[in-house]
């Protein structure tokens, strides 16, 4: 961008906040097991619907990170896919009475289909323009959903979404068991994101993120790759949105509004861009904080989240995961150097 003011030999981009070190495979496997254990134990310690919210928002943040951290595209309209899937999942569950995992998969599929034309238009612009175009399309969808009262219930939302699960009553009525029934869907989304990132396709995305002109010169169809990752990301956001709406039993316009797109970007940046791990971490912080504030009767959540956002962007652009990883790396570096001095 020509309009930079300060002398910038190397502009710090959102993507360069991503850690460039690869974790040691043993550490990585250990973390994975630890993460699974935490996820499995979560509803024992936290009210299960809240635990479900953390996972849903965490997956949603992973889908945003896939675009922002690994492709360098900030989607500020991801509520479009989360919300579309929330509604479609609800409609499938209510009108067809199918088990909820089928409904959620259907919702995610529709979100992916919607992402094709949106992505086709949005990837024509990059950087800040991409953010604005996606934001505007999400808002268009918001207005359409508000108009289509017969289908979406307008401002009342879509109520009474059943948790049908092959007639197993425990899952259908008890949020504790529902959590474990919905967990595979979340893990499916996280796995899809991880596979995308660690495949050759993912390496091309990194190349596009770091130097689009060069990726193009090497013969990669940059726009096509961007559309493909956009669609994958929309599918993951759709999985998250579907689980969220089934868990709550309703889908409302709140799911499509731009503040939701903003919230998920906040969660992603708070957790750490370009880490995938960061999303669930950020989600845990934000969801628990909002839960605390809401139960203490404080109205004005935006004052807290807005302040956090400002501080994070000003001071901790690497987020929780990135800052933590840096600290550990620095500690280890100082320990090895002091060890050498002793020897």
């Amino acid at each position, binding site marked *: 961008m020509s309009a930079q003011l300060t002398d910038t030999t190397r502009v710090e981009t959102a993507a360069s906040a991503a850690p460039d070190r690869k974790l040691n495979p043993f550490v990585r496997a250990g973390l994975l097991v630890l993460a699974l254990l935490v996820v499995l134990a979560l509803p024992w310690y936290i009210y299960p619907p809240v635990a479900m919210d953390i996972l849903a928002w965490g997956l949603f943040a992973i889908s945003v990170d896939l675009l922002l951290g690994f492709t360098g595209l900030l989607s500020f309209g991801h509520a479009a896919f989360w919300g579309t899937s929330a509604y479609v999942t609800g409609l499938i569950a209510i009108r067809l009475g199918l088990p909820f995992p089928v409904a959620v998969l259907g919702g995610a599929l529709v979100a992916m289909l919607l992402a094709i034309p949106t992505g086709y238009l949005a990837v024509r612009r990059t950087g800040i323009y991409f953010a604005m175009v996606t934001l*505007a399309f999400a808002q268009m969808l918001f207005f359409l959903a508000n108009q289509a009262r017969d289908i979406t219930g307008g401002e009342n939302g879509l109520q009474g979404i059943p948790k049908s699960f092959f007639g197993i009553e425990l899952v259908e009525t008890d949020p504790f068991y529902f959590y474990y029934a919905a967990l595979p869907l979340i893990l499916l989304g996280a796995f899809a994101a991880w596979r995308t990132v660690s495949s050759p396709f993912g390496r091309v995305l990194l190349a596009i993120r770091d130097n689009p002109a060069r990726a193009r010169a090497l013969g990669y169809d940059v726009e096509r790759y961007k559309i493909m990752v956009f669609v994958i990301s929309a599918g993951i956001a759709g999985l998250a949105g579907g689980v969220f709406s089934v868990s709550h039993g309703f889908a409302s316009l709140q799911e499509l509004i731009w503040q939701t797109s903003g919230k998920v970007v906040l969660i992603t940046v708070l957790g750490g861009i370009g880490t995938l791990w960061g999303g669930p971490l950020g989600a845990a912080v934000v969801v628990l904080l909002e839960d605390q504030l809401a139960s203490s009767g404080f109205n004005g959540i935006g004052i807290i989240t*807005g302040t956090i956002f400002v501080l*994070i962007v000003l001071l901790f652009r690497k987020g929780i995961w990135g800052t933590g990883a840096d600290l550990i790396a620095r500690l280890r570096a100082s320990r090895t150097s002091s060890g050498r001095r002793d020897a």
Partner: protein
Amino acid sequence: MSAFIQYTLQGLATGGFYALAALGLAVIFGVMGVVNFSHGAMYMLGAVGSAVLLDVADVPFWGALVIVPILLFLFGILVERLLVRWLLGLDPLYNFLLTFGLTLLIVDLVKRRYGVSGLPYQLPAGLEGRINLGGLSLSSYQLFAAFFSVVLCVAVWLLLTKTRIGMIVRASTEDAERTRALGINVGRWVTPVFGFGIALAGVAGVLAAPFRAITADMGSNFIIILFAVVVIGGLGSILGAVVAGFLVGLVEAYGQAYAPSFAQVLIFVLMAAVVLVRPAGLFGREEAS
């Protein structure tokens, strides 16, 4: 026919707000490379500010039209000095996110202080009635708002094209590096330009106060439409912002008149068409890479 003229007037009045605010957005983006998400919140502050001034200090509309933009200019300078400045050298996405956080903060602070229901405000003295023009009955306030926005846009245009200050600002917009090489301290112009852009959003807010519901959320839809306006006009293009502002205002007014359920959607359809045919916007230049 007379209905059509009324819709046109309404569109021009609404378009005036969009044009003024988008002009502020474009100037800020041009000089600083910052997309100011909090522009909608500043517009809201403009409207809330005039209502509060009336309530607390009995300042009439005409007073607010002068005082509120000055206050917002100062507020903008504060925001630039304390927050935006630190991220100028980085990816523009960071300032986008920073101003987004600021928006949440401002909106909820106003909500806590003044509640969610609308604040009362009347049409300014002398403009309450309607003007009859050959069988047409037009709201005199809407006439004034449309006229005033056009005049202000022209004034800003003259400021930017005919004065030395404008020349420096435009040169910084075009190519900050080369302007600096010509011995101009671009950094010194950044703060007042940000304040100026915020003040323009404030003017739009004051103009909107008499005939829009004044709530903390009034900026949340406004900012999205504003983004559509600058995408249509071409971000950073000053002429584009003004033309697209009035265009979107007209589309919205005609939409409300002839296809009320799709008035808002029409704007985004227009945006999609522009992105499809001319990705850089009507008056924008193609971006590099």
